[in-house]
């Protein structure tokens, strides 16, 4: 159950396919659409889903994800509800890995032990906690014990020494933050990203996903060259934010994700994905 992430990256490798990891804020734009949106993400080419747990003080996020979190919080979205959606999603999809992404305080208040078992039982595969650096990873020992994978960030500022420490503890995959900045910013430098990703992968076979600043097919292709997967967050969240209802949101997912999937498949590996 808990090795969905490893399994998925192994499959991607075998098929020489680049992973596509969309990020959405749980409960935004509409709480009753989250599960349907997650299925749509998979239908249009997602290999793994990052589900954002909204937080009131997201210091690493730009205005798009800030506002998206604020909307979700205003509707009372919390961990219990989010785990319910994951459970519902798992009724129809037992393969696509789900990583909860967010900040520490909502988990701290929920209780790590309680979260660990409930999240695992709901079908969550891993967590990526933006404000939990490798030094403090013992904080969530309960989660690791329950089999949830702990995904770490690596940044352009990460030193060789830190990288070694992170690789030692990393599980599932490493999330490379493509620039020093906040989500949604326009600072992507694909050449620098390729160099850094190559260095992270040197002497290690943990998969690397690149996120921050990936907004469309062109930028996805540009950073995917060396990476195993790309993460797309703000651009998708912004697109969903303009939709008025559930149907419109599902249409937006297709319109947004399908071209990116297609572009990634046409540049990577022989295993072209069948047209949807």
């Amino acid at each position, binding site marked *: 159950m808990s090795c969905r992430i490893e399994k998925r990256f192994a499959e991607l490798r075998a098929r020489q396919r680049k992973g596509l990891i969309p990020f959405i804020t749980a409960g935004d734009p509409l709480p009753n659409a989250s599960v349907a949106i997650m299925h749509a993400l998979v239908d249009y080419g997602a290999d793994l889903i990052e589900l954002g747990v*909204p*937080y*009131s*003080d*997201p*210091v*690493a996020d*730009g*205005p798009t994800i*800030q506002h998206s979190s*604020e909307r979700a*919080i205003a509707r*009372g*979205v*919390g*961990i219990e509800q989010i785990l319910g959606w994951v459970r519902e999603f798992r009724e129809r999809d037992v393969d696509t890995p789900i990583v909860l992404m967010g*900040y*520490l*305080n*909502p*988990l*701290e*208040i*929920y209780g790590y032990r309680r979260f660990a078992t409930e999240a695992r039982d709901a079908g969550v595969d891993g967590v990526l906690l*933006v*404000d*939990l*650096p490798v*030094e*403090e990873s013992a904080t969530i020992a309960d989660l690791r014990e329950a089999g949830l994978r702990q995904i*770490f*960030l*690596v*940044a*352009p*500022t*990460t*030193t060789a020494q*830190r990288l070694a420490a*992170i690789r030692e503890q990393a599980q599932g995959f490493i999330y490379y*933050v493509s620039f*020093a*900045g*906040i989500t949604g*910013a326009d*600072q992507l430098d694909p050449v620098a990203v390729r160099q850094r990703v190559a260095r992270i992968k040197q002497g290690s076979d943990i998969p690397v996903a690149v996120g921050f600043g990936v907004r469309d097919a062109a930028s996805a292709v540009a950073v995917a060259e060396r990476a195993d997967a790309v993460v797309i967050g703000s651009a998708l969240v912004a697109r969903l934010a303009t939709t008025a209802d559930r149907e419109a949101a599902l249409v937006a997912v297709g319109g947004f994700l399908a071209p990116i999937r297609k572009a990634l498949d046409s540049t990577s590996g022989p295993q072209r994905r069948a047209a949807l």
Partner: protein
Amino acid sequence: MSDEASGVQATIKVNDFHAYPDAQGRFGNFGGVFMPETLMPPLQELTAAYLQLREDPEFIAEFERDLKHYVGRPSPIYHAERLSRETGGAQILLKREDLNHTGAHKINNTIGQALVARRMGKRRIIAETGAGQHGVATATVCARFGLDCVVYMGAVDIERQKINVYRMKLLGAEVVPVVSGSQTLKDALNEAMRDWVTNVADTFYIIGTVAGPHPYPMMVRDFNAVVGREARAQMLAQFGRLPHVLTACVGGGSNAIGLFHAFLNDREVAIVGAEAAGEGMASGRHAASLSAGRPGVLHGNRTYVLCDDHGQIVETHSISAGLDYPGVGPEHAFLKDSGRASYVGVSDEEAMSAFHLLARTEGILAALESSHAVAQAIKLARDLPKDQLILCNLSGRGDKDVHTIAAREGIAL
């Protein structure tokens, strides 16, 4: 003395309060470094640089020179005799941080951090501010050292602290209004972090209180600890004894820890922090993180925070912008849990009365933040005999608050 104020019910046994934080930045269960990876290397660089500088005699001499000649230290301890008589109990002594250059304790810290920034070769300074006192103190040292200065300030605070906004501009700083979240201090801190994460190569973040990730709670405390060191020596010289009780207002907690730190191992000295109870603890509209919050993680450290059951940080309320913060420095969380200090709420109303009483009996206009400490000192004094001494940190002067006070009392200026 009331049980509340005596604070002797130790739950954690601590031998030496000066031994904190540990190498990981922990004060018992609190503190630490909970930050995005991008900022971890610069934080570690800062920690290493600061640990070296705090032992460097040249750096210390430079800092002390500026405290003396630029800030005007030492600040006096003033015996507020008429206020004490009016109160009818113990003697109230005021540590006059309001007499510092720029009008508050905040400059102790900004001088120290600007010197660290200069040593590290950083030329662009960012800061967050609530009341504007830390913003002014930062803009001041940036002007003095020729550094670029950007100050983040919540749009709500900009409205209620107009004079300080203009002061910062006069000093050459750029003031950036923050319109996210509750548009107060915590959001200014978030926005400063976002700036830092974006401009990490050339930027130094001068945090204004003992919050944030390690090494800030330690570094800001060290720079403000001059207050308590001076006060302890002054007490012995002027009064021949230590005070019975210390009190100070607690927003993030920098003026409070500044006063308390030198006395932490003097177990006979009681310590009481005054948090903002806003419209009253029962109203829910307050900023009393230690009295009404729970352990959580905010702005890079584990501490007491005001949040809901989903872990969302809630909006706080206080008449004083400088106390309007939903977290508190981790060392205070530690002092609370260890029983060494106690923390109580003081309402807007009580702070206002104390402001007026101090103005009329002593000719001192205190900052609204500091008025919370004065109110607490008055409360403590009432229950204590006349020969006991209460040392209250008068962290700042009230010039900046004149408009707020007038507006609250329905007076058009």
